[in-house]
């Protein structure tokens, strides 16, 4: 453990208001926080918990549309709330710095990395341009970026997402600050990349004895990074304490819920049915215009009433597979067989009945629902379109569907999507797919935009619906916890190829394909020593 110094940051009774509908509402209700020199504090909670807002307040900053209304923020003897904008500017970047969630959006695409790196120290007069560039190479090496001497000459789009996130951490380190705020720095990354970034951050923070506030929604990640954890919900502190103690022995029921979230798992099916599979993809090869092949000779099959999970990192071609199956991207070769009959390759050639039997649910429920249509119309349209239901019959069926997804028809039927929460919107998407009475629903990352507890509810709902109406799912995801929870069969994809497939138990138990192994071992576990142990193991395997 780190040696803890004196208190570097302290907040007392922090209250922050946010503007919604031209009214100010309190979103952070009196938070106390103490951070010692060299200590990492994890702020954890679901969206809307106020964790990012508190993180930014530690820099004396409130986002546009937010304002700090009460409380003290004291950074190393300086009261940030009474400091002038100029005084704050002298602190920010030099003594307190910030690493944002999306490094890709935070870098200026028109400048080289090293120029952006040296901007802050030069601007603040901490270092000369030459010294700053020298220092950049040191930090790039420290953060284990490849080609540390030359990588700074590249532009942001010429390095990968994980490398960019590490470059941004280097940038935050450039003036050797006393405090760094990490705002979900690995959320947008694949699991295998996440490990490298986590390891790099952990390493430099320790080396320079920097205090850090680590904001995330992922408890397993925070378990690796933080000395202390603060659990937040709706702007209130739920629980705060030593990381190890809290993980071993959570006091508050909400913390226990968060910890238990990944334990939901589907019972194994006893028999593999030997009838004709519902859907069979045979040797499909597909490419986008421009000729880049994204699918190479992919073959999978989906039995009736079962869930097939397609796992892979971004760029593995898993979403393209869904587009090839639906006919949005007609494959170049290979075919898609539906109950033994080949489906026409292009969407336009398929009949209404063929379309009805295959429905889709999307990743972002916000964009998957037309914001100007009411729930009644959204769910009602497939009913009249496919099943020719009208009037009272249609209305009754809409209500029935709403009840199936556990939403009160009287309350929700006349609402617009904008008046629902993210989880409720995703439920409506499920109801819309179910309305067509399909045999197969393609779920494209349906839980990845949702909070963990909400995602778990959605998975349980999908599972219950499968048991009730015997629908098959093709479940596309990058999250292995989701796979464990819902899949019967697993397909692992890498760079447009299937590297391994089979029943869940077979794929998840060793021996694995090399890549499956990497993927599985990269999923963070709650154990605080997991990251160190894993890195040590990998180091050992290399030598």
């Amino acid at each position: 453990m780190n040696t803890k110094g004196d208190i570097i940051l302290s907040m007392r009774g922090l209250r922050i208001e946010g503007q919604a509908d031209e009214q100010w509402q309190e979103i952070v209700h009196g938070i106390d926080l103490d951070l010692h020199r060299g200590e990492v504090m994890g702020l954890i909670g679901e969206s809307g918990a106020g964790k990012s807002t508190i993180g930014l307040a530690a820099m004396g900053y409130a986002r546009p549309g937010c304002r700090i209304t009460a409380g003290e923020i004291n950074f190393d003897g300086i009261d940030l709330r009474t400091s002038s904008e100029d005084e704050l500017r002298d602190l920010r970047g030099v003594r307190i710095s910030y690493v944002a969630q999306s490094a890709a959006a935070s870098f200026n695409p028109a400048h080289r990395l090293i120029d952006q790196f040296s901007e802050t120290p030069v601007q603040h007069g901490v270092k000369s341009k030459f010294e700053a560039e020298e220092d950049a190479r040191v930090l790039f090496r420290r953060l284990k970026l490849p080609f540390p001497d030359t990588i700074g000459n590249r532009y942001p789009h010429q390095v990968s997402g994980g490398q960019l996130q590490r470059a941004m951490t280097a940038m935050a380190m450039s003036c050797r600050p006393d405090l760094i705020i990490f705002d979900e720095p690995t959320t947008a990354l694949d699991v295998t990349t996440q490990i490298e970034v986590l390891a790099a951050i952990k390493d430099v923070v320790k080396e320079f004895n920097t205090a850090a506030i680590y904001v995330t929604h992922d408890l397993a990640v925070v378990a690796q990074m933080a000395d202390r954890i603060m659990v937040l919900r709706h702007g209130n502190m739920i629980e705060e304490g030593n990381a190890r103690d809290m993980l071993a022995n959570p006091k508050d029921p909400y913390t226990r819920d968060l910890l238990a979230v990944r334990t939901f798992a589907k019972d194994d099916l006893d028999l593999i049915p030997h009838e004709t599979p519902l859907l069979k993809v045979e040797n499909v090869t597909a490419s986008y215009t421009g000729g880049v092949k994204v699918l190479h000779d992919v073959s999978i099959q989906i039995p009736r009433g079962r869930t097939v999970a397609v796992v892979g990192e971004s760029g593995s071609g898993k979403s393209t597979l869904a587009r090839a199956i639906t006919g949005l991207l007609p494959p170049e070769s290979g075919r898609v067989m539906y109950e033994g009959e080949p489906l026409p390759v292009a969407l336009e050639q398929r009949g209404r009945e063929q379309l009805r039997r295959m429905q889709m649910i999307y990743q972002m429920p916000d964009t998957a629902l037309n914001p100007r249509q009411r729930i009644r119309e959204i769910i009602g349209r497939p009913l009249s379109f496919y099943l020719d239901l009208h009037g009272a019959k249609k209305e009754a069926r809409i209500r029935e569907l709403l009840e199936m997804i556990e939403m009160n028809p009287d309350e929700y039927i006349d609402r617009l999507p904008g008046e629902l929460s993210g989880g409720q919107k995703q439920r409506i998407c499920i109801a819309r797919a179910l309305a067509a009475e399909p045999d197969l629903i393609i779920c494209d990352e349906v839980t990845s935009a949702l909070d963990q507890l909400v995602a778990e509810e959605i998975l349980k709902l999908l599972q219950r619906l499968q048991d009730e109406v015997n629908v098959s799912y093709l479940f596309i995801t990058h999250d292995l916890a989701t796979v464990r929870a819902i899949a019967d069969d697993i397909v692992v994809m890498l760079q447009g190829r299937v590297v391994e497939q089979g029943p869940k138990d077979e794929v998840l138990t060793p021996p694995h394909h090399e890549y499956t192994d990497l993927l599985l071992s990269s999923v963070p576990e709650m154990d605080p020593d997991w990251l160190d142990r894993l890195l040590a193991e990998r180091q050992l395997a290399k030598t």
Partner: protein
Amino acid sequence: MKTVLKLFMEAPWSGRFGLLVIAIYIMLAVFAPVLTPFGESEIVADAFEPWGGAYLLGTDNLGRDMFTRLIYGGRNTIGIAFLTTMLAFLVGGVLGFVAAAMGGWIDQLLGRLVDVMMAIPTLIFALLILTITGTSIPVLIVVIALLDSTRVFRLARAVAMNIVVMDYVEAARLRGEGLWWIIWREVLPNAMPPLVAEFGLRFCFVFLFISALSFLGLGIQPPTADWGSMVRDNATLITYGDVTPLLPAGAIALLTVAVNFVVDFFLHKTSGLRDEH
């Protein structure tokens, strides 16, 4: 009516002013025969009578009552401008949505066609066509509407382009919905705010364009009253320091300002709505 009242109550002063002015113009246009003391093209006195007495704003170059002509002029000019703008939006909007939803060669064909039309200066193009076709009011409406629909096409296509890539449109395509449903039910409701705002602006431009054409003698033909030709007919008075010919011009300016106030208010309102999502 209730919604109009509610809209009026929540508007800022500029929006209220705009709505009020537009309401007055509409009233004047609708009740023109009741409000005016004389007929539209009735010659009631000598040319260029001064203000006051029986002739509230004097008489024009042919001895017709200026006040009467001003109200009738509003009726004609606003009516024609409104019809023209509607037609322009119907043609340009539908084609723009089709181009965005279909893509491919249809998009290319329509896009290039519009480029060609936009390459020729509008006023000169209009003068050319009107010289060939003659200047009856229906021809005038169709010609200006077609010329103006090119701008609407561009806007509608650009707005729709951002909408057709949304997942809900893909969901509709996957469902097997036809082009008409996608345009009418998925794209149009989401494209309304920018299009309505553009409607207000286009309306002003068409209005000015008709007045300009009338001033040049190729717009609304005498003896029908309209504001553009009224300025031209009485232009000589300006030399004598009389403001009468500027009254129609002022009426045009006032309406333009009012419409733009309302457009600004509407834009603000709808963009506010969007933030909630």
